[in-house]
């Protein structure tokens, strides 16, 4: 993806990293990364967030996968 600049937020999911424009909601960002919002939790600086939160420039978000198999 494009080199990071201050107008973007970074999403980490398992071993992948996505860069999205800041200002969009976490839910829209997750969908944009082709993930299903039902299957992740959103963590920013150790805090759990609801998916209506607007991503700020420079945000680093960890998406915690919640689905397990077996």
């Amino acid at each position, binding site marked *: 993806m494009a080199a990071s600049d201050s107008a973007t937020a970074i999403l980490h999911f398992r071993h992948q990293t996505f860069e999205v424009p800041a200002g969009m909601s976490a839910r829209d960002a997750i969908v944009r990364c082709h993930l*299903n*919002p*039902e*299957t*992740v*939790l959103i*963590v920013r600086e150790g*805090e*759990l*967030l*609801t*998916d*209506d*939160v607007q991503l700020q420039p420079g945000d680093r978000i960890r998406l*915690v*996968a*919640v*689905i*397990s*198999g*077996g």
Partner: protein
Amino acid sequence: MKCRKCSARAVINMRQHKLALCKTHFIAWMQEQTERFIHHYRMFARDERVLVAVSGGKDSLALWDILLTLGYRADGLYIDLGIDEGTAYSETSYACVRAFAARHPEAVLHTVDVAAVYGASIPEAAQVFHQGKPCSTCGLAKRHIMNRVAGDKGYSVLATGHNLDDEAATLLGNTLSWSVEYLRRQGPVLPPGEAGLVRKVKPLCRFYERETAAYALLRGIDYIYDECPFAADATSLRYKELLNALEQDSPGSKLRFYLNFLRAREQHPDFLPDEAGLTLHACPTCGQATTNDGDCTFCRMWDRVRRFKAQEVATTPA
């Protein structure tokens, strides 16, 4: 988004309930709801001793945490399956379980090391018995060992951490194949009898997987995040994906799928009638109930595995 109860910042929004809650109220809600389900489905009483099957994953540790917080007499059972495959899966999951148990001196942790007790790890046994992925071997062994430990140690109830996503995925699988025998038995409570002497219960069966994960996270429970290396292409994961795709567009789909199934079965007993009971015998080797003549499948498996290993030793040049 604000908490429905106190208007502090919400940490989770449960679209299927149209309910957003802050950390404090979400934790309390999970505990209250669990208590409600325990009563509603008549899972167990206050004075019963409950054995919780803990894998080190978020669900089973969340369940153990909730039961202890609610004041139940809940002990843990960890079965060391000996799964490594370069991921140290069993080792890491056991470390999570031990760390949790260390924080709860009021509870006992029982451990069964499969390789030490039976002579081979689950992946080794599976090579001999089921040839291929070890999940059937693993399931068979876990069921047997849970029954045995619960019986031996005097627990009347065995609780597992199955969540709604697990149950809905199983239901979808059983429906796609019209496995009537399984559809008849699937539910929050499996009475003692055919599957062993203890009652089996699933107190978390109405929570979404997202909620049990959020609970574990918010409670600071260290759980094993990575999958068992054999789960990678499990069919159940495909079913969960399908159900979550429905859920994304129509919140509450997977919950309705499961709850309406339970309701339909209750309201229309002819829909899945109880069959004339299977004839059960006690296995001559281990004593557990089986439909086999002679030894149960579990005992046959280990017999074969041990004979195979003995042969291997005998034919290996020194």
